[in-house]
């Protein structure tokens, strides 16, 4: 019964974005610009390393660059969430009165928004990259499927993790600090700036100890074909593991937060 | 004597997107008006009639599509900065004050902006603070003020540099009765003391009655009436309405002299009577009602702008 409600939420999150066409176009220009600059730099780096750098060749690096740019609209690396605003204004108490789980509903509409953003931002960015530069793609249909699943998992995981930032609002008056910190750290560790395989060992260890690479880096590696077969399934399993953990924490945090609101008087 | 405002065939069009096509909307059409120094003019009309657009052309924000306009003898667009020293504008919806700074800071900044000498700044600020009673919230950030307080501060800000012309765009909108009263009294006194010219756009007939000697009525961009309020009411035959609450229900008051019965509520407890203020006073109508029953409470409704405007339009067809 509630499934229908969640589906509607997803669709609504989807639809809300369709009004921002001009903004999407502007975003595409931004993606293309950064993409081309990164291509210039990272290709030169690969060239200077004799054709391969940290397991990337030019083709897989190109895939990395364009998919990471395209995912910017879908993976929430800004740290800002609607739930944080609703807690601050007090509207969250209305949400608690509804028969939907606040935690899951919030994540669902965020995912809806993110999935929609793939259309004006995700696909065109990749298309432009493919046209202008060319990129590596998976060579078997199975790899495409695994890649798509990994992509969706990454998006859901990012929505679930950033929810925790917003949930801090149950205890802190101002979540701005945490949101900014999240924004700075998440992008870097998710592999937005450079592939994490290029990190020095200690930094790489730090990154893999967080859910961030699972949001972006792993789906990209699977979709570019850099990682395949059993290893790709292993990455997907890792994503699922993180998702379960983060969802669990989110549930606990929401329940505790709700109790706190009730005690305080909302 | 040079006019404070003079427009000749002033017009302004906008191109708007209507679905897939673009169409041209005429916001102001062939406006020719002359306002002398010291006048108090009410500029009324329905929403979208072109009032804000005209003000923007008077102050140099918008370039006219047709015709010409001169404000304080200057060309608004070309001489905008010189004109800014002569004109003070109060926007009802937009604030000229610095939102998160104390009111006092806004005044200091504005004094610097208008290059007022310290002596003039001090004297003028004191005068305005006293007459608009701003003392209690001079140190409060603007965003924490109530609407009434903010409007008083805005008026003071607009008048700080003692402009020759003051334009007020819906200044009393949303204010309670007392605040409106105080603001109007201040503006009347200011005019008397300094001879400032006043141009006021408003929906509120109370504003017009108490502040203006002349009315410009605009209907879809063009001038429908230019004259006094009394003249307008007479032209249009607008009536005031007396609403009486009676001690006990009374049959419909159909034969109160010189009054027209509009309706009854509560089985005759509350009754509405319309009358022409030129031929009979409210007091006389009230006297007529009192002969039929004891009056507990009463209210008088002024003909609202929409009603007058509607009648003017009806007359123009």
């Amino acid at each position, binding site marked *: 019964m509630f499934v229908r409600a969640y589906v509607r939420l997803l669709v609504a999150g989807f639809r809300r974005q369709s009004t921002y066409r001009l903004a999407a176009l502007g975003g595409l220009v931004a993606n293309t610009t950064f993409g081309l600059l990164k291509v210039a730099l990272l290709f030169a780096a690969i060239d200077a390393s004799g054709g391969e750098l940290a397991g990337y060749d030019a083709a897989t690096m190109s895939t990395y660059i364009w998919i990471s740019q395209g995912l910017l609209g879908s993976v929430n690396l800004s740290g800002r969430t609607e739930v944080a605003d609703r807690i601050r204004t007090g509207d969250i108490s209305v949400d608690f009165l509804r028969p939907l789980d606040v935690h899951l509903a919030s994540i669902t509409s965020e995912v809806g928004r993110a999935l929609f953003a793939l259309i004006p931002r995700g696909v065109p960015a990749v298309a432009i990259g493919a046209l202008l530069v060319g990129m590596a793609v998976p060579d078997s249909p199975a790899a495409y499927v695994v890649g798509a699943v990994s992509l969706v998992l990454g998006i859901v995981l990012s929505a679930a993790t950033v929810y925790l930032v917003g949930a801090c609002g149950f205890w802190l008056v101002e979540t701005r600090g945490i949101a900014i910190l999240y924004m700075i750290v998440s992008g870097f560790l998710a592999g937005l*700036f450079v592939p994490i395989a290029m990190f020095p060992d200690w930094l790489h260890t730090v990154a893999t100890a967080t859910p961030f690479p699972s949001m972006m880096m792993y789906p990209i590696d699977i979709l570019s074909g850099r990682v395949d077969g059993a290893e790709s399934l292993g990455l997907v399993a890792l994503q699922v593991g993180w998702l379960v953990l983060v969802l669990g924490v989110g549930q606990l945090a929401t329940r505790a937060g709700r109790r706190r609101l009730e005690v305080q008087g909302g | 004597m040079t006019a404070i405002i003079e427009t000749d065939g002033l017009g*302004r069009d906008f191109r708007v997107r209507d679905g897939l096509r673009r169409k041209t909307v005429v916001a102001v059409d062939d406006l020719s008006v002359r306002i002398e120094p010291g006048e108090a003019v009410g500029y009324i009309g329905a929403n979208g009639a072109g009032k804000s657009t005209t003000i923007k052309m008077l*102050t140099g924000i918008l370039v006219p599509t047709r015709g010409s306009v001169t404000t304080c003898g200057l060309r608004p667009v070309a001489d905008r900065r010189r004109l800014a020293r002569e004109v003070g504008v109060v926007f009802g919806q937009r604030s000229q004050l610095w939102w998160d*700074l104390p009111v006092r800071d806004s005044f200091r900044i504005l004094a610097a902006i208008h290059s007022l000498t310290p002596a003039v700044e001090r004297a003028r600020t004191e005068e305005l603070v006293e007459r608009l009673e701003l003392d209690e919230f001079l140190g409060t950030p603007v965003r924490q003020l109530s609407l009434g307080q903010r409007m008083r501060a805005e008026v003071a800000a607009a008048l700080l540099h003692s402009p020759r012309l003051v334009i007020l765009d819906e200044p009393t909108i949303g204010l309670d009765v007392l605040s409106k009263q105080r603001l109007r009294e201040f503006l009347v006194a200011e005019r008397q003391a300094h001879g400032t010219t006043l141009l006021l756009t408003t929906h509120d007939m109370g504003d017009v009655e108490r502040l203006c000697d002349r009315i410009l009525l605009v209907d879809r961009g063009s001038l429908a009436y230019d004259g006094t309020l009394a003249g307008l009411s007479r032209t249009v035959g607008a009536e005031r309405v007396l609403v009486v609450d009676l001690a006990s229900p009374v049959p419909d008051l159909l034969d109160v002299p010189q009054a027209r019965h509009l309706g009854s509520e509560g089985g005759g407890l509350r009754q509405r009577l319309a009358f022409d203020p030129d031929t009979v006073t409210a007091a006389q109508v009230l006297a007529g009602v009192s002969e039929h029953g004891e009056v507990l409470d009463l209210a008088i409704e002024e003909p609202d702008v929409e009603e007058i405007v509607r009648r003017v339009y009806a007359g123009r067809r």
Partner: protein
Amino acid sequence: MADLSIAARTAPYRAVLAARIRAQRTYRSNFLLDLASSLLIGLVELAEVWVVFRSVDSLGGLDLAAIVLVFGLADVAYSLADLAFGHCDTLPTYLRAGTLDVFYLRPQPLLLQLVTSDISLRRLARAGVGVVAVVVGLSINDIAWSASAVGLLVLSLASGVATFAAMFVWAAGAQFFLLDGAEATNAFVYGGRYAATQPASVWDRPLKVVFGFFFPMAFAAYLPVVTLLGLPGSEWMPSWLGWCAPLAALWMWGLALLTWRTGVRHYQGGGG
């Protein structure tokens, strides 16, 4: 009107800025937070450059030591420009709320009012990262110190600040046409900042046209460093081009002011 002294003419702008600075200091905890996050952002951006350059001996003719200097110069110039001009990106907010009209009622030029309407002190922290990078870069690189070397550095830093400032003004002027498309100008303002920290020699021709000459980001740091370190030039970019940084700044300001004027005319519906 009497001829006013410099002090009197700048009084309105100083008054607003002073009030803004006072206001920023009163929000202590937020201010500290902003300082800390600016610092962190600067560090992460430096880390990004460092991660790439540590994997190779040299890239585009620059080694790690050289790129640190490039990064530092570009970042300091950007941070200082951002401090004074960064808030010009609030113009879309003014446009949507209609509050730009308030600027028209004041006897000052519109652009000057916009530029002096705020100042972001927290950018100072980010400038700190850049300054450290510059100092480190100057010490670990092999520089033939002379009066002309110092002159080149000072000239490029000043030109870099002016160029980035012009980018902010250009973006603001473009907002009159773009409104919701603000991200398009971000592509060139933030993309430009990113480009300024790169070795332009790795760019292909289209990129060189866009970020080398049209939005002259390469002149902010890369080209001066090439000149300073006596490195060989690359296609279209001879090694002495670093001395032309002031010309690049002039060009960018011309572009910015033209865009601003066109934008304002469009807003007013005028133009003749």
